[in-house]
């Protein structure tokens, strides 16, 4: 998959503004960015249901405008909003999808059994979709997207709206798919999700790509190894911020409730803060994450 100058405009609004990327077989590639960064528009173009306004896009050797249907035959798509048919049973949802791809009934049944087992929904096979939990519906959507044995699986915010436990189950299943050689393309605004799943990712903001690399590379390039997070009482905050700047940290960021100090050694810097006579309400030394990369690149947090 290859994109050059890929652009999508809706009227005068530019959702995706000339992005370039290459994607290789078997890798897990992520688009990380806040809501409205252009991730979903990009996913729709990659899913061949949204013709690019400008630029060049090649998927599986085909042109998505000319060969859209043939490319889609080799894709699996997990949309952001569930499009399961709630009037049908779990099994019937897979049957309907298998039929779209023209698979024979026997093969659909075989794959349905395998896939429901894979997403741990075997006991719910003949239940209706409506009463399933959000996590189960998402897993069912993933199972449905695999019915045609796709080469590429496109997931638009696969765990948004799920509780932590359900997210971990989804991650575990996606990780297994990746190990089996399915190419994964996913969008997320969770940096932990991107770190967990992606071999390589791009950070998107305002329709453009702000940075590209492996999670490790991005952290090395755009952040320090450690981050010191401090909270001060509101009346001491301004004084504390000034004093800490005098200690010449590599970089600081202020968020709504915390001060982030980027340093090679967080504990060492914390000692210096204490020596300067400051007493934070809370303190935390942690490793840098993609959240810090994003904050550095855009000056904003990922999830507002």
């Amino acid at each position, binding site marked *: 998959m290859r994109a050059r100058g890929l652009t999508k405009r809706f009227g005068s609004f530019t959702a995706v503004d000339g992005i370039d990327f290459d994607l290789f077989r078997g890798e897990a590639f992520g688009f990380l960015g806040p809501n409205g960064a252009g991730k979903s528009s990009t996913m729709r173009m990659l899913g061949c249901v949204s013709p690019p306004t400008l630029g060049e896009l090649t998927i599986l050797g085909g042109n998505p405008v000319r060969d859209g249907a043939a490319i889609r*035959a080799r894709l699996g798509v997990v949309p952001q909003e569930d499009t399961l048919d709630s009037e049908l049973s779990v099994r019937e949802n897979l049957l309907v999808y298998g039929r*779209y791809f023209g698979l024979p009934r026997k093969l659909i049944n075989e794959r349905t059994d395998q896939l429901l087992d894979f997403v741990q929904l075997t006991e719910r096979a003949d239940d209706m979709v409506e009463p399933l939990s959000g996590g189960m519906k998402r897993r069912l959507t993933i199972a449905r997207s695999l019915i045609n044995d796709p080469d590429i699986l496109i997931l638009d915010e696969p765990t948004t709206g799920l509780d932590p436990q359900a997210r971990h189950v989804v991650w575990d299943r996606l990780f297994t798919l990746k190990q089996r050689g399915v190419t994964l393309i996913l969008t997320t605004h969770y940096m932990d999700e991107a770190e967990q799943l992606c071999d390589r990712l791009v950070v998107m903001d305002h329709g453009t790509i702000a940075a590209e690399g492996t999670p490790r590379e991005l952290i090395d390039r755009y952040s320090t190894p450690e981050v010191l997070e401090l909270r001060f009482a509101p009346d001491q905050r301004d004084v504390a911020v000034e004093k800490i700047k005098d200690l010449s940290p590599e970089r600081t960021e202020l968020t709504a409730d915390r001060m982030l100090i980027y340093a090679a050694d967080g504990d060492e810097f914390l000692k210096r803060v204490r020596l300067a006579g400051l007493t934070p309400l809370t303190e935390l030394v942690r490793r840098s994450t993609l959240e810090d990369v994003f904050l550095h690149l855009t000056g904003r947090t990922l999830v507002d």
Partner: protein
Amino acid sequence: MAETLAERPAAPVTLPNLPTSWNLSVRAFRCWLVMYRRTWRSSVWSSVLGPLFYLGAMGYGLGTLVDKNGTAALGGVPYVVFVAPAILCVQAMNSALSNAMFPVYGGIHWNKIYIAARATLLRPADIYRGHLLFITMRITMNCACFVVFMAAFGLIKSPWAVLLVPAAALTGLAFATPAAAWAVTLHNQTPMNYPIRFGSVPLMLFSGTFFPISRLPEWIRPLAYATPLWHGVALCRSLSLGTVDAGSAAINVAYLVALCGLGLWLGSRSYARRLYV
């Protein structure tokens, strides 16, 4: 583990050849069948009993009054015989509109069947034609039921009536193709009430359904001739009464086919515009 999820070889991927449009449309159609298997019970009463009530009230109730005054203007047949094929057409129109508007809108906004289907190799035009196949099936089923009732009540006067079901289905399809083409473009559901309130009701009243068009003021008649329902009614009535005349029937059929063709063309465009955003 499962063969579906087995390690895949590093062979280069080649894009598959697409099946024919007809094949793809049938795939979309079969999915509507899966759903219909779950929901058909709720639709039976409205689609079978509704027209029967009409036939009872208009044909037999009102009909007794009409027949007292002589039915020369109706072609000398009892009112119920005159009105039955027209009610058949009205039913075809109504089941076309009810199947081609709200479910089409729902395919994008409610159950999102269209959105789910567009992620597969089905193209918008396949999704449209597949849904039309299902709508045609529903119209045909409703019409066939009604024709059976007509026969049972002895309201059919000619062997030409074997063509009543396809003629009525064609009438319905002439409404369904443009209605679906339009409903898919909507962003809220309110406008779908207008074709029913300002479209099908006046059509039902003034298309030669309950009284011959010759009773209308002369200046308004061309308007009635221009409506699809009039062509459907004229065609079905001639088949049922055995007054078929090849020339008029050909005009009626040509008009309805042309409207279907126009609808199909519009629908392929509007579906593509709506689903490929």
